[in-house]
């Protein structure tokens, strides 16, 4: 079996994980805690991922220096890369193609450096304004450059499809400067019933 070049979606995901690796250096980049509830939260220093796929909890964990391990765990958790690279010649590949399309949609929202595409940022909406943020350490970080807390907010992207279901990305952005803070609480949230 010959090695097949990974799809564009995988390249984007790898870039995202590379960004994690760069930030985290040689330290543990991901650790997971599972609560009694249906959500598994995964923190990866700068990035965290919450996954919920049906009733199944999936955990992303690994160490920098073993990027493929982290990558594989991430892919497994999100299901984004599953079935990519399949052809359309066989009718049985229909569901796989659907998953591939969902995977490509999921990965297309990220830039090559792991951030969010400008168009995705523009389509996002605020959830919590800066003055209402309860995490004072985060507030301190966001305003460390002298920026006005009132210009910051926690945002969510619209929902995007992935093989594991629709998801949104939460992040912090400064509406005055357009700066996005990816180093804290930047996470993918799989949409569950509300």
């Amino acid at each position, binding site marked *: 079996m010959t090695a097949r070049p990974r799809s564009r979606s995988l390249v984007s995901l790898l870039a995202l994980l590379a960004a994690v690796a760069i930030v985290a250096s040689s330290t543990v980049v991901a650790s997971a805690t599972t609560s009694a509830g249906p959500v598994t939260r995964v923190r990866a220093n700068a990035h965290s991922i919450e996954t919920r796929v049906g009733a199944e909890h999936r955990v992303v964990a690994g160490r920098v220096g073993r990027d493929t391990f982290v990558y594989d765990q991430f892919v497994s958790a999100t299901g984004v890369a599953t079935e990519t690279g399949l052809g359309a010649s066989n009718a049985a590949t229909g569901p796989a193609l659907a998953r591939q399309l969902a995977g490509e949609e999921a990965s297309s929202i990220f830039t090559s450096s792991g951030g969010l595409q400008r168009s995705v940022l523009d*389509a996002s909406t605020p959830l919590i304004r800066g*003055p209402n943020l309860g995490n004072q350490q985060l507030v301190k970080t966001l305003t460390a450059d002298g920026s006005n807390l009132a210009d910051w*907010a926690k945002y969510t992207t619209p929902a995007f499809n992935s093989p594991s279901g629709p998801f949104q990305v939460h992040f912090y952005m400064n509406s005055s400067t357009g700066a996005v803070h990816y180093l804290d609480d930047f996470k993918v949230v799989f949409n569950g019933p509300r």
Partner: protein
Amino acid sequence: MRVVCVQLTNPNTGLTESTSPWLDLDTEYEVLEVYAYPGGRIDLRIAAKDAGTPALFDSELFMTVDERIPPNWIARVREGGTVEFGPSTWLETGFWERFFDRDSAAIESFETEKRRMLDRDR
């Protein structure tokens, strides 16, 4: 309190749009909270059309169609001068962070208080 969406202005680009992933023109929405900031901006928290994400939208996008104040609202002036109207539990510091982190108690509080508002409007 209910409002109708009368314009779609993207808060990030400032551009008027014909469609939005969050709101539909000429559609009514229940106002879940009101925030008035010292700088003059006023946000309404509204359950968006996606999956009901309770997000913030500029009050300029709406007009009132039912001006009754929900019975479970309180008013609070936060340090820094933000005036907030909403259910007391929602106005607690950190509530919305817990909610968006899927904290079960926060989600239950959200559903309970939202139901009170919607039931009153029926």
